[in-house]
């Protein structure tokens, strides 16, 4: 029984925190979210590749950092803390998919993603809701992929798409004239969603059955990763709140001295720390491939989603009027959380998954 991070993970936490605090405080990242087309700093992502963060979860033989699921959680938690924009988790999930496919071209794209030279991203969803559908409309017909995927996160920035089709998982390099991608601006202005219409050359990597198995494993990692991001987001949001409560004055005193606000801050902290327990226990179970991992990952995602919604919403409320302004940062955290609650297995689907993992 040990809850502390081991030496390597503790070191990883310090390094990524220092890097992000220097390179991507909100003062620097907000212009990326608000003023660039891709929504993130391409230079920083290249640097993440150089520093080895992009191959974090891969084995050493694949050129990765072998940091495991716990290492991934550590890095994503820190990214959440500063609301780091861009497709970091999506790239990790595409890598995890590629490395499970035995294919020479896939291996080559994997290496290029790890080094930061290319971006491979998954294109799976065909609808905006989270309802399960029995079949995919996108087809793979004699090395041509036809269909519409939406939303695809950061799809416009992809060099290669991994596309799910009725026949299986297909590899689709970006056509020379670029993707037929329509931007879908949404509530979370840091997120980039596109709709991509495909009628492009591509080829099948695996059949449907194998693809489903691979993607099931990748989905667990996605849910865990999103939980760790939300843990970081609520941590960052709570830090903002505590600073504000300690400096803002009203009625002749610091507002943090009002018990009604103290108790609300205490509830936020309880949510943050309980999510931390849940996220790291799930990461540990997934890393060790334990049977209870599906229950624990689903629990972590559902619980940290509810908690992050609560914590980041409270931040806006406790800031008062300025919390509702574009200028202040609380809305950045709140919006990121809303996106993550839906993606990587929505809360209601995770709740159902938790029940089913127990045969209920």
């Amino acid at each position: 029984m040990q809850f502390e991070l081991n030496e390597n993970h503790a070191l990883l936490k310090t390094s990524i925190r220092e890097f992000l605090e220097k390179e991507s405080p909100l003062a620097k990242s907000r212009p990326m979210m608000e003023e660039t087309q891709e929504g993130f700093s391409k230079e920083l992502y290249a640097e993440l590749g150089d520093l080895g963060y992009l191959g974090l979860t891969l084995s050493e033989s694949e050129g990765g950092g072998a940091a495991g699921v716990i290492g991934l959680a550590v890095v994503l938690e820190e990214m959440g803390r500063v609301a780091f924009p861009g497709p970091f988790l999506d790239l990790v999930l595409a890598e995890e998919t590629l490395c499970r496919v035995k294919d020479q071209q896939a291996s080559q794209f994997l290496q290029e993603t790890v080094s930061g030279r290319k971006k491979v991203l998954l294109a799976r969803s065909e609808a905006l809701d989270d309802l399960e559908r029995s079949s995919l409309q996108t087809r793979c017909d004699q090395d041509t992929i036809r269909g519409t995927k939406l939303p695809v996160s950061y799809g416009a920035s992809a060099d290669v798409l991994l596309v799910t089709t009725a026949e299986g998982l297909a590899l689709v390099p970006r056509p020379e004239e670029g993707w037929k991608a329509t931007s879908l601006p949404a509530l979370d202005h840091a997120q980039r969603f596109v709709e991509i219409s495909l009628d492009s050359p591509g080829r099948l990597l695996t059949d449907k059955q194998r693809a489903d198995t691979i993607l099931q494993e990748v989905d667990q990692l996605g849910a865990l990763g999103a939980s760790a991001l939300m843990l970081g987001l609520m941590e960052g949001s709570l830090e903002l709140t505590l600073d504000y409560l300690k400096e803002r004055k009203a009625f002749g005193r610091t507002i943090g001295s009002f018990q009604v606000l103290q108790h609300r801050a205490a509830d936020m902290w309880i949510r943050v720390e309980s999510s931390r327990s849940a996220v790291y226990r799930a990461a540990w179970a997934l890393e060790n491939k334990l049977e209870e991992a599906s229950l624990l990952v689903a629990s972590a995602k559902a619980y940290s989603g509810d908690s992050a919604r609560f914590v980041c919403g409270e931040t806006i409320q406790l800031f008062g009027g300025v919390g509702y302004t574009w200028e202040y940062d609380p809305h950045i955290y709140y919006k990121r959380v809303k996106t993550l609650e839906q993606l990587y297995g929505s809360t209601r689907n995770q709740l159902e998954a938790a029940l089913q993992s127990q045969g209920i």
Partner: protein
Amino acid sequence: MDFHFSEEQQQFRMELRAWLKENLERPWIEELRDPKNDEKKLFDIRRNWQAKLNESGYLGIHWPKEWGGRGLTVVENAIFAAEAIHAPPIASRVGINLLGPALIHHATEEQRRRFIPKMLSGEEVWCQGFSEPDAGSDLAALRTRAELDGEDFRLEGQKVWTTFAPWSDWIFVLARTDPDDRYGGITFFLVSLHQEGIDVRPIRQITGESEFGEVFFSGALAKREHIVGAIGEGWKIAMTVLAYERGSMSLAHLARFDHYLKDLVDGVRENGSLQRADVREKIARLMVEKEVLRANGYRTLATLASGQAPGPEASLEKIFWSEYSRRLADGALDLLGLQAHLLVRSPHARPHMDWAQEALYSRAVTIYAGSSEIQRNIISKRILKLPSS
């Protein structure tokens, strides 16, 4: 990061399971259901069970061997709590769980030798004299006085919410030795209940039982040799007791909650509502929160096992498990309807679970051991460092 139980700990669990199978004659719920068992009889069953555990080395599992313990860790103690959920609760729960750690940390060797063995054997049952009618959440406002009488002291005052008072032999009391020093004027006494100047009156609870009572002191003797720590150190020692009361117990509660939630799932399966979306969502949330509770519990356990004393983080656990227990019981009453209202002795009551008792008792757990409001004060002041008004 490691949540594994070690080989030795697994071994401990297996041996314990075998021992329980051999030694536990009847699940506690059946004793409760038996019309022949009145409150006195039930308490005797608890006392006998405690004696049996003590003979077999299953009490004070994480205490040092020299004080009658088994010399293992809080992890094995938690395993015990989880495995023994169908067994009667021990008679001297308050003594062993709360006073025990305080004696081990703060008492003299002589006091430990005098009190610990009889506490373990159940020969002497303890209750806790902290709260008073005008000192509940504001415990330091307590007014029970200890007045010097020769070498020793005489107690004047009243304690309330004293769990097991009607069945106890001894009480550990916080009493005022200096009226002018709010915290430094409090001393921790061990006092016999079998003497002149003490009057114990049961209080009837909302469950109808009288598990706790009031204790009145009028000149009762409190011996100097039975002061724990120094005069004026009572507050500090009380804080140790309360930290143990708050923290490290989630795993024991978890074992109960596992059992309860299983009964709830069985119940909705039987009444045919398990496929309803509203039912599924409610049960899924209770299940998810229970896993979060377990994760919090393991985390505290890991901290304690590494030798650290429970800190203000214990407040997180206390709030989480106590408030969860309310949500779980309310959830069962909602989803099982009046079947969950039936008392354990009623026809048609659920055979393995006393939801009515649990639903009522869950209204106590967010009050005792420092109310949820006090825990939030502790978090905001000591962890979040928010300013005092």
